[in-house]
């Protein structure tokens, strides 16, 4: 049977859809990761046997209480903090919202009891123009409700934030600086440690939060080294299931509760613990710590292979790679590549059954493509922004998948009418970084 099928198909295997074949290559690890087998293994007892409420004092509760405590230790081990400083949440959005809301409301609570509260002004937050919507949308919502004001500092053409810009944005009312550890679209690693140190000096009472959702399992994240007060980490970005995350809260930091209810999470976040998912989060954290170097090296190798393949096959004068030129300032797995003249949303639509990746723009029927705020903040020319693909490798990516992705992308680019004939200039500095 297989012999017949091989004879019917073109040599590349790309052809008629066959029901018993999976065609789709996954290069969207920044969107989410599969649950790793070791993580699945760790979760199984909590599906079948161990179901007690961790708040119960009897044997059933003790077993699941132990699982929650173990997960807390495993996460603490990954980011180098005390288990008491780890608070579990349902997702990265909850962690980010809690950090922002909690810091602002804690300050409002303390200033309302002050006799000079009317003169102090609204709490102020400093963030960046490339944060995840879980930060920016939350701040916008809080500002619209008159709870705070905020300043979003710009980034340079490489997607990097300047420490000076952050410090310049501080005001006497600034209660929180929230800067992401790494950017999900272009992979730029922000100078969070330098920012935290500068903020401590310029505004000693101000808290520092970092959304490290994209960094876990890819680069080292040590909260002591970073000097942050709050840090978000998200399970489904590094092999844990979706629906579980954590917020690191440095000992001594006062945050107002986002969820009020039972006394779970030391009274900071009510709600029965999701033991099943927490077991997975803990296992993923332990795995990330154990395999850090090996996984990062593999991701980088696959990413570099992908970049080299695309740069060799696509018209060089039309291509640029976005993000920091210094690879040490970039996530090892992220490739943001722009092709002038290409429509990335259309390409991904065409290849939807064969290639899983993301675009730097979305199709928008009435006003044309909607370019991502990150690429806009980097002042990437719209001609390149529309043609931006975000490809992200992972722990399980193979070289064959990378090579196939290159073939698929180049083939689809040809079908869009991309001009492969002329060589042109090898660089285009219209908006910053040249192809590298």
């Amino acid at each position, binding site marked *: 049977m*297989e012999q017949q*099928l*091989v004879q019917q*198909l073109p*040599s*590349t*295997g*790309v052809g008629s859809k066959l*029901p*018993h*074949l*999976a*065609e789709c*290559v*996954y290069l969207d690890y920044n969107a989410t990761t*599969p649950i790793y*087998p*070791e993580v*699945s*293994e760790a979760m199984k007892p909590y599906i079948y046997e161990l179901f007690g409420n961790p708040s119960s004092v009897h044997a059933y509760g003790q077993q699941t209480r132990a699982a929650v405590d173990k997960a807390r230790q495993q996460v603490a081990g990954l980011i180098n903090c005390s288990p008491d400083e780890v608070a579990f949440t349902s997702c990265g959005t909850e962690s980010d919202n809690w950090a922002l809301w909690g810091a602002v409301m804690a300050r409002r609570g303390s200033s309302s009891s002050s006799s000079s509260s009317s003169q102090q002004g609204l709490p102020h937050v400093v963030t960046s123009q490339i944060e995840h919507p879980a930060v920016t949308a939350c701040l916008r919502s809080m500002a619209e409700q008159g709870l705070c004001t905020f300043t979003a500092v710009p980034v340079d053409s490489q997607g990097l934030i300047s420490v000076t810009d952050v410090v310049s944005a501080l005001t006497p009312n600034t209660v929180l600086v929230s800067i992401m550890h790494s950017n999900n679209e272009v992979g730029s690693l922000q100078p969070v440690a330098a920012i935290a140190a500068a903020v401590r000096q310029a505004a000693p009472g101000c808290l520092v939060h970092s959304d490290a959702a994209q960094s876990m399992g890819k680069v080292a994240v040590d909260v002591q080294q970073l000097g942050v007060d709050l840090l978000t980490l998200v399970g489904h970005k590094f092999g844990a299931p979706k629906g579980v995350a954590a917020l690191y809260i440095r000992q001594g930091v006062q945050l107002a509760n986002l969820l009020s209810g039972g006394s779970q999470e030391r009274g900071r976040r009510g709600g029965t613990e999701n033991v099943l998912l927490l077991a997975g989060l803990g296992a993923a954290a332990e795995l990330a710590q154990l395999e850090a170097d*090996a996984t990062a090296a*593999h991701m980088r190798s696959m990413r570099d292979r992908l970049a080299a393949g695309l740069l060799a096959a696509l018209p060089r004068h039309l291509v640029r790679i976005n993000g920091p030129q210094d690879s040490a300032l970039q996530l090892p797995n992220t490739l943001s590549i722009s092709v002038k003249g290409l429509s990335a949303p259309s390409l991904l639509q065409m290849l939807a059954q064969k290639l899983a990746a993301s675009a730097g723009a979305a199709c928008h029927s009435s006003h044309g493509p909607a370019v991502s705020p990150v690429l806009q903040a980097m002042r990437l020319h719209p001609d390149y922004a529309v043609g931006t693909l975000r490809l992200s490798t992972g*722990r*399980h*990516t*193979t070289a*064959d*998948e990378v090579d*196939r992705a290159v073939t698929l992308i180049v083939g689809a680019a040809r079908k869009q009418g991309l001009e492969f004939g002329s060589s042109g200039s090898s660089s285009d500095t219209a908006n910053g970084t040249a192809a590298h």
Partner: protein
Amino acid sequence: MPSAAEVKSLFRQFLRVGRKFPNYNIRHYIQRRSKDEFHSLAANTDAAAVEAAWQRAKSQLEVWQRQSVVYQLYGRKVKTVLELDQAAAARQHAG
């Protein structure tokens, strides 16, 4: 401290259990990771580190053995085009 023969045997067991996974990505991951890890173990002269890695490897093998059964039960039963390409390439090479 495991003997060289024991290490080789364990390594082969890893490769064998890796082949049992129907999932293309997991199968390749286990093979790649096993080779990398065992090669680095071979170069390690620290007895305590080798012993710790040995114990870890034995428990990891049990994890893979159980998971291979689960993946065979619940994993998708389809091949990927990459496997088809590899089979075609192997036939071409053999022919």
